[in-house]
């Protein structure tokens, strides 16, 4: 979608949403790091969506031929039960990304709601909501996740819930501080003066103006969520009916793959985790720039004043004005 928007002609400039995509794309393209992150993400997204469909179910591959080394038939070898590890990794990509994205979105929703409410309502609301946030914040994430996962049982949705519950406080704090600055802006007063309720102002004025931060934060939270899911699965409290990168690592560890030198068992999921986490972090950095409205569409200047009076002749006219490139502030990227 992005390349189509980028190629769109200038009339699209009037339409904010498409323009925002164009702008986002141009920022990512201009920055080598976020471009690299984007490429990695697209590759993994394709694997996650199309991989399982193309590759078929896991068990089809190598029945009763356990612990094979990598070969053309089994690119990453097979595990103790004779599952093809290449296929398992493809399925695991889908699960890991799904957990990461869904858990992060949940966490962002909770964190953003808490942050905006605390920051905008202030006073007693702020105090109570932030104490609650602090409570979750200082809990050792991994221990809480382990306990919750143990209590609620090892299913996919429970892992998602556990990750969401333990990762929202950081978001809430960031969003709250941004809300505090947005709240003091005049257009919030203006909305209040028109009779808008607090709930409405939080939704219509505050949320859109902290949304950039929400998005930037989401990419970082996804990285954290994937990492946490891997850890949980590695520790054996992840879902047992699906494969994720963490579970592959867990099983390889149990089978002693490291001492047996079965590198193809534990290296691919490990590398995948590192790559995806890195990619989200790289892309997340670019959001700072994408969503700063002052950096957007610098080209469109103000139109003429409607009441400008025509003095009849030119008061000041300039012809063939040229500015040396070295002095032109526009070209110096100021």
């Amino acid at each position, binding site marked *: 979608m992005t390349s189509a928007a980028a190629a769109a002609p200038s009339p699209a400039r009037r339409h904010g949403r498409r323009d925002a995509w164009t702008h986002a794309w141009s920022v990512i393209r201009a920055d080598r790091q976020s471009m690299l992150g984007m490429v990695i993400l697209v590759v993994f997204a394709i694997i996650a969506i199309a991989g399982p469909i193309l590759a078929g179910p896991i068990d089809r591959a190598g029945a009763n031929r356990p612990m094979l080394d990598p070969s053309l038939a089994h690119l990453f070898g097979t595990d103790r039960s004779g599952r093809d590890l290449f296929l398992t990794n493809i399925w695991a990509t889908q699960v890991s990304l799904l957990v990461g994205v869904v858990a992060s979105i949940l966490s962002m929703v909770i964190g953003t709601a808490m942050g905006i409410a605390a920051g905008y309502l202030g006073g007693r609301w702020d105090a109570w909501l932030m104490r609650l946030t602090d409570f979750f914040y200082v809990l050792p994430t991994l221990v809480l996740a382990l306990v919750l996962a143990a209590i609620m049982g090892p299913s996919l949705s429970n892992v998602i819930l556990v990750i969401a519950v333990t990762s929202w406080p950081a978001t809430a704090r960031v969003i709250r501080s941004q809300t505090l600055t947005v709240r003091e802006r005049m257009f919030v007063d203006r909305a209040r003066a028109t009779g808008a309720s607090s709930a409405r102002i939080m939704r219509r004025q505050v949320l859109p103006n902290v949304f950039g931060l929400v998005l930037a934060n989401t990419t970082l939270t996804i990285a954290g969520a994937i990492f946490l899911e891997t850890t949980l699965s590695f520790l054996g409290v992840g879902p047992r009916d699906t494969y994720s990168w963490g579970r592959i690592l867990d099983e390889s560890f149990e089978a002693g793959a490291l001492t047996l030198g079965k590198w193809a068992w534990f290296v691919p999921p490990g590398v995948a985790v590192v790559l995806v986490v890195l990619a989200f972090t790289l892309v997340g950095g670019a959001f700072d720039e994408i969503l700063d409205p002052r950096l957007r569409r610098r080209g469109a200047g103000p139109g003429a004043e*409607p009441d400008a009076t025509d003095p009849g002749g030119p008061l000041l006219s300039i012809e063939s004005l040229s500015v040396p490139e070295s002095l032109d502030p526009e070209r110096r990227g100021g």
Partner: protein
Amino acid sequence: MIGLRGLRVHYPLRRSLGAWLRGEPVGVIRAVDGVDLDLGRGEIVALVGESGSGKTTTGRALVRLAPITDGQVLLDGEDVTRIGGRALRAYRRRVQIIFQDPYESLDPRRTIAQQVEEPLLVQGLGDAAERARRVDRALDDAGLRPVERYRDRFPHELSGGQRQRVAIASAMVLEPDVLVADEPVSMLDVSLRSGILRVMLDLRAHRDVAILFITHDLSLAWLIADRIAVMYLGRVMEIGPAETLVRDPRHPYTRALLSVMPSPDPAHRRERRILRGETPDASRVPPGCRFHTRCPLAFDRCRTEEPPSVEVTPGHVAACFLATEPPTDPA
């Protein structure tokens, strides 16, 4: 139609730990300290004062944005000082405000049409077609013509003057009876000011809206207002018909302000009376007449007793012991 009675807006100061331990009382900033003011239908009243005089806070209290400590706001004789919820929303439909800074008062992420439509949505007025019609009319009234050229733009694509017109449109789209204009032109280039002022005069003429015009510029007040109220340290020092107040000022503070007003006619330059010192801190309002620390005519009584408001001529009131005496030059 709308009136303020003894309005007070006091903000408590935060005590330092040391002050708290010594048991010192909580200080207050007396931003507005007993203001009486009335606006009739279609009337323009200018509220003039230096920065820190409480004129902006008065305006914000009128639209119920500033917390009112004491006193009353009356709309058509009805006390609206403590209303909330639905009643407050209904009140805000009738009393609107435009702010000083046109760069800050618009939401950077919404188009002009969305911003102007928002008050209608908040108030639940009209269907989509009706709202679009009213938005167009408000933009047109505010001088953003042709309307099609502005509707889908974003604030950062407009100049300061255009933005202020958008702010006016989004206040006027509710067709209020009262408009508080808080220094609406002070952030604009001088060349754009007359355009904005003309829009406001047109609105008064065609919509019969009463305007509380807040400004620090006495000449601007004289130009646009029917009546002028001069504020100092949270109080109205002198109020009267614009013409009378400028021709025959009775309060020494008003005279000082007038004397530094630039005159286009060099032959008629008055002798300038530059006030000594600065406006005292609003948390330490002087006893007696609050102006006595800077007043060239101050005498003993001013230091202990607050001067009453004296009606010099009908509608022309000054809070000075010497208000009825012929003006004398200070020694």
